[in-house]
């Protein structure tokens, strides 16, 4: 019905009709699929939540005399420097030097890689300390200096896994408190935590990856980035409901974007008691309404998206694969969840408020002719499973 070129031309002339994945639901209900598909050009999807597999490559530039950095710390957080002389990778979950971690259980994990990335984007001055073994052309053995993101030549976020297509709901069936990446879970199935934007989440609006693929332009915390690969652990073969939407963690996206364009409101360090540090990101992905089928998928509702309830005290750590129950996102978001005849207390780690904000900002940018869509250069795999790690002898 429509092509990427046609939609981009409308965006250029500021005439594109854009709605968020939240707004499109009522719109389709009111106008009908056919009419809505003719009228609407783009639906914006979004999510905001902790995404551990995030980080960034930075380049410091050369000091005088030069150093070939072999070990480096930013604000005492180790950064990977096993690459070229003054390049480094800051990983979101790296702990600060001397953090007691869980030696004092549950650890507090106040500061780490995610916080370094947050402060970098916020323009704060950070300390670099680096060592080297020294070479003929890179004689310096040690350096301590302060820098901001503006002093760096490049600061490029490169996230191997973001935007999980659906996610587990965690519960604790044991009789003691457990501290997880989904927060504190009280004993004896008292509370649960979910983590997805549901009907607003990118891959839940494009369950078969018809428009989101490698090369798709994405709004990464304010930067105009893109999908550079399938995300790690991409598992498109996860069980799906009748509407094609996976009923558990499935596809994932690898994203990249220029940190110098990012908005600090959507790049936030995370401290999870007893678990560690991470980075929460706001991500938006536009879906071009090329035909009625694509539109129909974007009109998916929370009540038709199901997430699996998993016991994080036993089944999750031991990979049992057991699913206790399935909840839909409507009940999860309303906090009205019953399991085994009892009402559960509901927490979430994904911010719907922030996700709505992202979807709205992206919508406005497209309407103003500032954000264009790109056709994927390759599709995300549709027939892919997620293999476990076998523990075997060398033989």
């Amino acid at each position, binding site marked *: 019905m429509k092509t990427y070129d046609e939609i981009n031309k409308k965006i250029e002339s500021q005439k594109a009709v854009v709605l968020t994945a939240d707004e499109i639901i009522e719109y389709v209900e009111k106008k009908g699929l056919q009419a809505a598909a003719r009228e609407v050009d783009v639906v914006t999807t979004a999510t*905001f939540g902790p995404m551990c597999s995030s980080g960034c490559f930075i380049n410091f530039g050369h000091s005088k005399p030069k150093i070939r950095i072999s070990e480096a710390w930013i604000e005492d957080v180790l950064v990977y420097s096993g690459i070229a002389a003054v390049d480094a990778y800051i990983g979101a979950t790296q702990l600060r030097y001397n953090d007691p971690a869980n030696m004092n259980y549950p650890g507090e994990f106040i500061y780490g890689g995610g916080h370094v990335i947050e402060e970098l984007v916020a323009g704060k001055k950070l300390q670099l300390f680096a060592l080297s073994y020294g070479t003929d052309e890179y004689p310096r053995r040690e350096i301590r200096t302060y820098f901001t993101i503006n002093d760096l030549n490049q600061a490029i976020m490169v996230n191997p896994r973001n935007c999980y297509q659906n996610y587990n709901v965690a519960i604790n069936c044991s009789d003691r408190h457990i501290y997880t990446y989904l927060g504190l879970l009280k004993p004896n199935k008292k509370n649960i935590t979910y983590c997805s934007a549901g009907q607003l989440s990118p891959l839940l609006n494009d369950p078969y990856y018809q428009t989101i693929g490698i090369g798709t332009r994405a709004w990464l915390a304010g930067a105009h980035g893109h999908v550079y690969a399938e995300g790690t652990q991409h598992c498109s073969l996860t069980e799906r409901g009748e509407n094609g939407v996976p009923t558990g963690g499935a596809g994932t996206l690898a994203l990249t974007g220029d940190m110098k364009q990012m908005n600090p409101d959507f790049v936030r360090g995370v401290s999870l008691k007893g678990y560690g540090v991470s980075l929460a990101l706001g991500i938006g992905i536009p879906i071009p309404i090329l035909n009625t089928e694509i539109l129909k998928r974007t009109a998916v509702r929370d009540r038709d998206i199901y997430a699996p309830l998993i016991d994080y005290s036993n089944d999750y750590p031991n990979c049992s694969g057991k699913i206790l129950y399935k909840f839909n996102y409507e009940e999860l978001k*309303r906090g009205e969840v019953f399991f085994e005849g009892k009402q559960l207390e509901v*927490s979430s780690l994904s*911010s719907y*408020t922030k996700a709505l904000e992202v979807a709205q900002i992206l919508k406005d940018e497209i309407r103003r002719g500032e954000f264009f869509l790109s056709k994927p250069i390759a599709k995300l795999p549709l027939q892919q499973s997620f293999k476990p790690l076998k523990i075997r002898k060398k033989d």
Partner: protein
Amino acid sequence: METKKLYLFFPKSETEKPIIYHLVKDYNLIINIFRAKITPEEEGYLVIDVTGKEEDIEKSIEFIKKSKVKVNETNKGLQRDVNKCTHCGNCLSHCPTKALHIKDFNLRKVEFDEVLCIECLACVKNCPFGACSSIF
């Protein structure tokens, strides 16, 4: 009868004064202590609910103000930084009085009702973004 939440700061010189005793005995107030940390020779803090006749409460505040103890009727011991809050909702199942709650489930914005807060500090321990903190 009305109930008021007060936050008292005890400077070093005042930590040995039995303020609560006087509130009960002289002003007929019912005291509910949320949190207290008053150690001799150190500064101290006290967060209480006082219930009683409006005029008695007013008089009792006058009485406290006569000493060097500082009374604060607005600024509580638990502080929530709205700029740090991302409205993720992790606090919801940890707040026992629903002081932290969601009004509009379509927007899922986390709101804080100071009056309901009993300063158990569960949110301080559980907020991934450090939005809630205790001033003592």
